[in-house]
């Protein structure tokens, strides 16, 4: 039987900040969809001197689909900041395709795959592997997007930076276990 080409070897050094990200990576691996974890950082807010005040690194990039995926399993009422980031990303980088995967989407995915019982331990605060870096708190409503397009150049995140950001949780994915 000529099955599609085998996927990559497991990537034990790919860490995830959240159990839901590890679960989505397992699902993508299962269906042999290529992915990269936080491969790009998109500046989305600058000060008057042009210094980057706020950036956004979507969780996954699916190169075959040219699609970024950001997953958030916070309760819907708490995702305002994430929505704002995605809106700014879309405004500044209109060529970038991104899908925001909400808690309800993740829950539906788990339900579809008969893993509804795991949702609570893979979601929200419980699903975090460790406290992450303090997120910026700049309110997007203060930002005027006009004139910023020329500065909107995504950065390729360095390997060391990605590893620092991901180091906390590598073991969970490597173990292939949904448990946190």
């Amino acid at each position, binding site marked *: 039987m000529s099955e599609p080409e085998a996927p990559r070897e497991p990537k034990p050094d790919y860490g995830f900040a959240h159990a839901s990200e590890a679960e989505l990576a397992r699902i993508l691996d*299962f*269906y042999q969809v290529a992915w990269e974890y936080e491969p790009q950082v998109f500046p989305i807010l600058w000060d008057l001197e042009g210094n980057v005040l706020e950036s956004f690194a979507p969780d996954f990039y699916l190169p075959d689909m040219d699609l970024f995926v950001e997953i958030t399993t916070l309760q819907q009422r708490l995702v305002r900041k994430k929505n704002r980031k995605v809106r700014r990303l879309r405004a500044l980088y209109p060529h970038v395709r991104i899908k925001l995967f909400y808690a*309800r989407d993740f829950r539906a*995915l788990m339900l579809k*795959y008969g893993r*509804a019982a795991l949702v609570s331990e893979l979601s929200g605060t419980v699903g975090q592997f460790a406290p992450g870096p303090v997120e910026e708190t700049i309110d997007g409503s203060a930002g005027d997007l006009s004139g910023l397009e020329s500065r909107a150049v995504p950065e390729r995140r360095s390997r060391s930076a990605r590893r620092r950001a991901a180091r906390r949780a590598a073991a969970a994915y490597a173990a292939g276990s949904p448990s946190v």
Partner: protein
Amino acid sequence: MKPSPDMKQDVAEILLTEEEIRAKVAELGARITADYAGGELTLVSVLKGSLPFMADLMRQIDVPLRIDLMEVSSYGGAATESSGLVRILKDLSAPIDGRDVLLVEDIIDTGLTLNYLLRYLRGKNPRSIKICALLNKPARRLVEIPIDYIGFEVPDRFVVGYGLDYGEVYRNLRFVGVLRPEAYEEPSQP
């Protein structure tokens, strides 16, 4: 949670009645007949959910056709733990090289299974492959794949019936309905 003896009690809302489904299947069959007039067709159904749709659709298509069945493992199923990769559980029973193939799906949501199947089938050198899905749930899409024939767009809710299951149950409902959350949620602890 166990399904109710009367499965309809587990359904919160009927989205598509038996009559609506029947009319849509006839409409799809007429379109497919027109598009493949003068040719031959191989319908490939993906077990298990698309069986009722396939059975009804094939009888609404008036061109010579063959049917074939495939089954692939699903994430979270028994095969997940053994390999960690999607597997073909049942392959085609006849070659499709040089043939026009219509892949018949019950529902397309993430597109992950369909994406895998298309890659697999294209490797068998058919003359063409098109996709016919009874239900499309675009809100859940991760992999964008053009769908040639769509019966209905459905909202972002968990639907069962007419082949669609939850825990292998509800496939034999003659309509498509929204499953009550109580049918799949664990009861909350006191």
